């Protein structure tokens, strides 16, 4: 809990990384001659580079911090975000959708909607997307600044501005190419920086079997660690599917199979991977159609294996917390030093015979739940033999019955990394946040410049003007992200928030693309109403529902409070995760239904000829005969799907 001081070797690694990413920006600056160079990389990049960038852009705070947090909270079922919630959608994108994105020569995903439908549909999608990128980037930077503050004692504002500043510089210099190139560097940095931490954690716990044995015990009595309020079957943390089959109550996620398969695996996953310009932009920057289609395929290989890197640390953290001799706990939420001092005084002056009042006073002083039994024991121990203030403080720290799950990964780095390796792991963490931010910013600036500014406000200017605007909006985008970071500062689990925003914007949109790409009868007016209805639907759904244990407000159900009504039982979900999945499912169904019905009710405004290259049935199929077998998306995609199924069976 004390900030660590970095050695010169750590700072050298950190600075070397910063120097290299900035260097890449500078080296690419001379190639930036037009808005297309800056915003779309002028379609010039090889597959393995776009593929790794594709996965790296997604590897922001969401991955390392959020997935480790979920790994601790939910165990191996978190891997569904990969094996169910990513791989199938990535392969679908590669095989079926990329030909339309790349072949239509659209400069962005919203632009495809403009070609297929009309400007209003594109505008609606572009605005939603722009808001989402800024939020995602802000949340990511907030998490980074918070962690740097916690671990290194850096000033929050300093950390936030310096890291954003580095991203701003290299994106401004080298545009999308610079973001993509640094993302590849970041990919290797993240993998090579965290692999030793995971290895050391696993070794310390005593290997995989020792960890699962420990987690079996934890699952049966998570109350002992204040990890959950009810007990589960032994395999709740160590099996991916079995706990889900038992329904909402049988797993710590509080979800069932339908929510995972349809809500996550279909709606959220396809909505994200197939329509989110943040990732699709990487594939669109590829040098030719085959390279573009293979981008998500290349990305799917590391994606499938990432749970070992990002989820396993969370599970290790739980196992370590359950082993008293390891002297580790998942860190509690940050508590001010004054509050600790106050709590220490309460413990010192407490009467061991009547500790109940003191326990309550400690909890009040900290503003957190505490483990009453352990505090009572601490008071008794102190009464028996006088302890130093630091010892008592450590005792209180250990007895806080709440967890800051987002700091799991950091706490493991701190535990296992000596100077040197610490610098490397820290740099990896920094790299993941920066790649997330750069990804969002480069998607944001393209959508703003081409799809909002050029399309709606200032249509007929020279390319030099849009080039300038692209750079200008990059600065604005970073500024907005910083503002969002401050806004995000009040939330605990960033992952849940991102899922919620995805639910609003992403969930309905896949229905629109599905109809647009695969049914030529879909009309523009239907697409617009469907998309709008989907977003409105998810907003209403969120306003009416809430997860158990949450207070009506930003977490949902605020409409009931406004109406002065209790939240009805039917509107309460067993977990936030379940609420998010159902929200997405609802939004998707609204969009799907409205688009379908209205398409049938309105007449087509676009002819078959106009839709050529935009709709599946009107576009000549791509013939892969001249491409070697191992580069054919359909072939490699099938192999990967089989591998994914095998993984699911292994961890069933």
């Amino acid at each position, binding site marked *: 809990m004390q900030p660590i001081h970095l*050695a010169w*070797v750590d700072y*050298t*690694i950190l600075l*070397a*990384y910063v120097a*290299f990413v900035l*260097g*890449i920006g500078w*080296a*690419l600056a001379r*190639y930036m001659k037009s808005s297309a160079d800056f915003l779309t*990389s002028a379609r*010039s*990049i*090889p*597959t*393995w*580079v776009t*593929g790794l960038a594709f996965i790296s852009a997604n590897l922001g705070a969401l991955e390392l911090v959020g997935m480790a947090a979920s790994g601790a909270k939910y165990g191996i079922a978190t891997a569904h975000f990969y094996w169910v919630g990513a791989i199938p959608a990535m392969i679908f994108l590669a095989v079926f959708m990329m030909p339309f994105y790349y072949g239509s020569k659209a400069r962005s995903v919203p632009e495809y909607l403009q070609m297929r439908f009309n400007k209003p549909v594109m505008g609606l999608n572009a605005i939603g997307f722009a808001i989402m990128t800024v939020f995602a980037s802000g949340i990511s930077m907030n998490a980074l600044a918070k962690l740097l503050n916690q671990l290194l004692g850096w000033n929050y504002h300093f950390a936030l501005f310096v890291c954003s500043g580095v991203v701003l510089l290299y994106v401004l210099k080298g545009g999308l*190419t610079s973001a993509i*190139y640094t993302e*590849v*560097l970041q990919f*290797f940095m993240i993998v*090579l920086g965290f692999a*030793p931490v995971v290895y*050391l954690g696993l*070794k*310390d716990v005593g290997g995989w079997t020792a960890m699962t044995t420990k987690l079996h015990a934890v699952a049966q009595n998570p109350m002992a660690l204040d990890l959950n309020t009810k007990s589960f079957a032994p395999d709740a943390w160590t099996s991916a599917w079995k706990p889900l089959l038992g329904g909402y109550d049988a797993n710590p996620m509080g979800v069932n199979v339908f929510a995972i398969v349809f809500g996550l695996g279909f709606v959220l996953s396809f909505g994200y991977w197939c329509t989110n310009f943040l990732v699709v932009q990487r594939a669109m920057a590829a*040098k030719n159609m085959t*390279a573009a289609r*293979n981008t998500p395929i*290349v990305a799917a290989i590391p994606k499938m294996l990432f749970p070992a890197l990002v989820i396993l640390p969370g599970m290790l953290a739980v196992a370590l917390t359950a082993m008293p001799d390891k002297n580790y706990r998942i860190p509690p939420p940050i508590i001010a030093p004054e509050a600790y001092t106050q709590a220490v005084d309460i413990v010192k002056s407490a009467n061991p015979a009547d500790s109940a009042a003191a326990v309550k006073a400690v909890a009040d002083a900290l503003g957190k739940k505490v483990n009453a039994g352990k505090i009572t024991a601490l008071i008794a121990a102190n009464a028996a033999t006088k302890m130093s203030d630091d010892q008592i403080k450590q005792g209180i720290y250990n007895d806080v019955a709440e967890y800051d799950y987002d700091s799991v990964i950091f706490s493991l780095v701190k535990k*296992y*990394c*000596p*100077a*040197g*390796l610490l610098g*490397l792991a820290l740099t990896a963490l920094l790299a993941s946040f920066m790649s997330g931010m750069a990804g969002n910013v480069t998607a944001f600036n393209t959508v703003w410049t081409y799809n909002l500014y050029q399309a709606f406000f200032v249509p007929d200017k020279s390319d030099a003007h849009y080039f300038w605007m692209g750079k200008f909006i990059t600065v604005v985008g970073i500024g907005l992200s910083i503002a969002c970071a401050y806004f995000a500062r009040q939330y605990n689990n960033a992952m849940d928030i991102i899922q919620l925003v995805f639910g609003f914007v992403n969930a309905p949109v896949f229905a629109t693309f599905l109809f647009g790409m695969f049914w030529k009868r879909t009309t523009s007016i239907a697409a617009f109403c469907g998309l709008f209805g989907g977003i409105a639907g998810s907003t209403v759904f969120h306003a009416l529902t809430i997860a158990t244990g949450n207070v009506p407000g930003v977490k949902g159900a605020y409409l009931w409070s406004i109406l002065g009504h209790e939240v009805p039982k039917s509107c309460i979900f067993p977990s936030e995760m379940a609420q998010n999945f159902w929200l997405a499912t609802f939004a998707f169904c609204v969009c799907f239904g409205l688009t379908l019905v209205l398409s049938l009710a309105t007449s087509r405004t676009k002819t078959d000829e106009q839709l050529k290259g935009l709709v599946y049935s009107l576009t000549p199929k791509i013939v892969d005969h001249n491409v070697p077998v191992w*580069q054919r998306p359909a072939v490699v995609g099938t192999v990967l799907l089989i591998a994914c199924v095998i993984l699911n069976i292994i961890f069933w």
Partner: protein
Amino acid sequence: MGLDIRWPIGLMFTFIGVLLTGYGAINSAGSQSLGMNINLIWGVVLLVFGLLMLLGAARGGKTPPSA
């Protein structure tokens, strides 16, 4: 674009690899984790990775691995 990304990746990891290996060799006491000189071990891994990237960049020039 005219920059092969394997150059900066290779250079960076070679540099960090040398740094970590050297630090682990000089300061063995300060490099221990679970009884291993982890800086030395991982430094060598990074060094090998960095050199492989440089080798690829130098040899391949215009033909990256899977394009």
